[in-house]
């Protein structure tokens, strides 16, 4: 049974078409990534799943119910637009949220200190919310989403604006929830997080679904067959690589290295061993599948749309750079 199902869902805001005929089925126990650039329609989809917004046409079901309203207490939700009661103390705020989700006061009070410690906020219960930094508050809000041990955890841009340590702490908690059996729906515009965490990705662009595949299948389908190589000695002659079997072509990169593309059907691990045997490498690795590339290939429609692809790439990178700065 699926935890979430969207059937031909459409939503407009005035003249603006936000979500256009999206179908989605998230199986129970999956870690599902919703990815796409800012403004693609991710948050609108999630708000519809949460029954905060309602689709113009189409239908949906959440945890077997026709609306999230009927399953509210079994869902954990970290919205993109998140806030706290500034005057409330962290512990009281979290207990209040958990109580609204049907957890008893005693249970909530017992869980709060442990979870706060797990996200690196040990002993913050008595601190008023307005004395915490933005990153700390975000961790508090994350705790608010998982405190009632939901069956379905929906995280909208959970890592935006967080430092790497905090990101690691939150990711551990997401994995814990997953290990407990929870279904996870995670939206992000930073492709790297989705690559590392999700077993299934759902791509949305300008309100339309452009991809909905398991990560494993995606790796097979979009296997780049590329090897990144840097020689140990900068003056080494790398021209021999191009003459090796299975190598389609070689493209020199800045700093004396190169990107090697193999012919179709070639076994990358064998090629790596052969190249390393020919020229001692400072670095040699099989290029990781980048969702960014997949995304661009899908959206730009393969070849012939280089300008569109370049524009998209710069948009994605600008978004990621913003995150890094934040």
């Amino acid at each position, binding site marked *: 049974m699926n935890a979430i199902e969207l059937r031909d869902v459409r939503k407009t805001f005035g003249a603006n078409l936000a979500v256009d005929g999206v179908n989605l089925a998230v199986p129970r126990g999956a870690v599902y990534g919703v990815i796409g650039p800012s403004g693609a329609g991710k948050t609108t989809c999630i708000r519809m799943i949460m029954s905060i917004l309602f689709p113009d046409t189409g239908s949906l079901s959440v945890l077997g119910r026709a609306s999230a309203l009927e399953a509210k207490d079994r869902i954990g939700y970290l919205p993109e637009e*998140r*806030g706290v009661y*500034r005057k409330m103390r962290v512990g009281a705020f979290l207990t*209040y949220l958990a109580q609204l989700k049907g957890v008893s006061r005693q249970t909530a009070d017992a869980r709060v200190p442990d979870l706060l410690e797990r996200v690196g906020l040990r002993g913050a219960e008595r601190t008023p919310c307005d004395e915490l930094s933005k990153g700390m508050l975000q961790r508090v809000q994350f705790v608010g989403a998982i405190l009632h041990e939901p069956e379905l955890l929906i995280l909208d841009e959970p890592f935006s604006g967080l430092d790497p340590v905090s990101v690691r702490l939150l990711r551990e908690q997401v994995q814990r929830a997953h290990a407990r059996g929870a279904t996870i729906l995670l939206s992000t515009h930073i492709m790297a997080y989705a690559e590392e965490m999700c077993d299934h990705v759902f791509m949305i662009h300008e309100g339309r679904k452009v991809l909905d595949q398991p990560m494993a299948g995606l790796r097979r389908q979009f296997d780049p067959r590329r090897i990144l190589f840097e020689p140990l000695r900068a003056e080494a002659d790398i021209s021999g690589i191009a003459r090796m079997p299975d190598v389609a072509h070689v493209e020199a990169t800045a700093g004396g290295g190169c990107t090697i593309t193999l012919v179709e059907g070639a076994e990358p691990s064998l090629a790596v061993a052969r190249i390393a045997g020919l020229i001692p490498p400072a670095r040699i690795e099989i290029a990781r599948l980048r969702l960014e590339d997949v995304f661009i290939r899908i959206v730009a429609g393969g070849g012939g749309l280089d300008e569109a692809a370049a524009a998209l790439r710069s948009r994605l990178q600008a978004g990621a750079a913003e995150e890094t700065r934040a």
Partner: protein
Amino acid sequence: MSFRKIGLVAAREFMAAVTNKGFLIGLLIMPAMFAILVAAMPRLMTASGRDRVRGEVAIIDPTGRVAPALREAISPSAIEARRQRTLNRALDAVAGNRDGGEALRSGQPDPTRITGLAPELRLIERPAGADLAAEKRWLTAPSAADLRPLALVVVKPDAVQLAPGQKVYGSYDLFVPPNTGERIENEVRDGLREAIVTARLAARQLNAAEVEAMTAVAQVPSMTVGAVERQTSIGFNRFLPFVFVGLLVFGVMIGAQTLMTSTVEEKSSRVIEVLLSAVSPLELMAGKVLGQMAVSLLVLALYLGMGVLMLTSFAMIGLLDPWLIFYLVLFFLITYFLFASVFGAIGAAVNEMREAQALVTPVMLVLMVPWLMAAPVAREPNSTFAIALSFIPPVNTLAMMIRMASTSPPPIWQVWATLAIGLAAACATTWVAAKIFRVGLLMFGKPPNFATLVRWARQA
């Protein structure tokens, strides 16, 4: 609808409101100011009265009959007697009848604590042909003496006996130096009035005491005839409508305003989306409305309790009909639900407090109506105007409260009709407000105008 969740929201709302420093200060400031007024004002007022004013009053009396009578009339004992009479009249008016006034008087052992010490005024007679300009200079000339010049009286020649062919007596001119003070001036006027009347009566060979006795008719309270015949209490009931409508408006304002503020805060701090993932908009609104209602009821209970305590301490509690308090609470609830839902909807519609002002102003004006209509309605509680107002929401409950607290309460069917109309209006308003609330909560951006709100109410 989960009543547990509504209860949780209400409890948080209540706690957040009553533990807010601003609220506590606001709550205490009214009674504190009142207590200061009650405790300190008489002291402050009598503090000046504790210093006996001493001074001279000059008189130019061509009739030769006013001056001796005035000397008598501005003696400290005569002034004290006059003040005591005025005080008695005031106390009778406040208590509504002679008995109540007597009760108030008996609680006040030394009347001069209220009235202050009578001034010591020395009368100086000037010759009839004295130079007015020189006398005026005397008023303003610096005096080292203990007795400073306070007034100069010039009695008209026909003040005591009519001039031939005239039907109106002459009076007098009164000159005072700067800073004489109204009170002293009034004492001189009152004394002059008494003195001139005495002189006129004496000129007709009439006995002043006899005439006074003949012209005095005691004012008695009326008896309201009904199932139980009871004494109509006028004075107390004269300000009762204002107190009750004041409590009603105040209670509604406290709750509704805080409700709006807290909704705007939830929206602007973006905590709203987290909340909406746990409760439905209707549950949230219901919880908030109930939570703030509890706050308002707490404030009302505090103020009513203080009022009852004060009445008890003045032995006037019998004048307050306990049913009025019952109806106050009933009317409060209806009025509160109506206004609170409107304020809640406004809070949900806007992004920040600043934007709320434009939408709140008309609602506030409606709440101001009772202040404007309180006096005419209280004076004629059964006029067509008053009856019509008590059937027009949203002011009907306020108008009815004024009428019920007035001297002639309305028939009971009208009270229930007002309640029914109020309840219907409150339900209708809450229904519309809930729709605006639901749509508005997640609307950010351009502040809505009235047309937008109507559209939201229709689309929801």
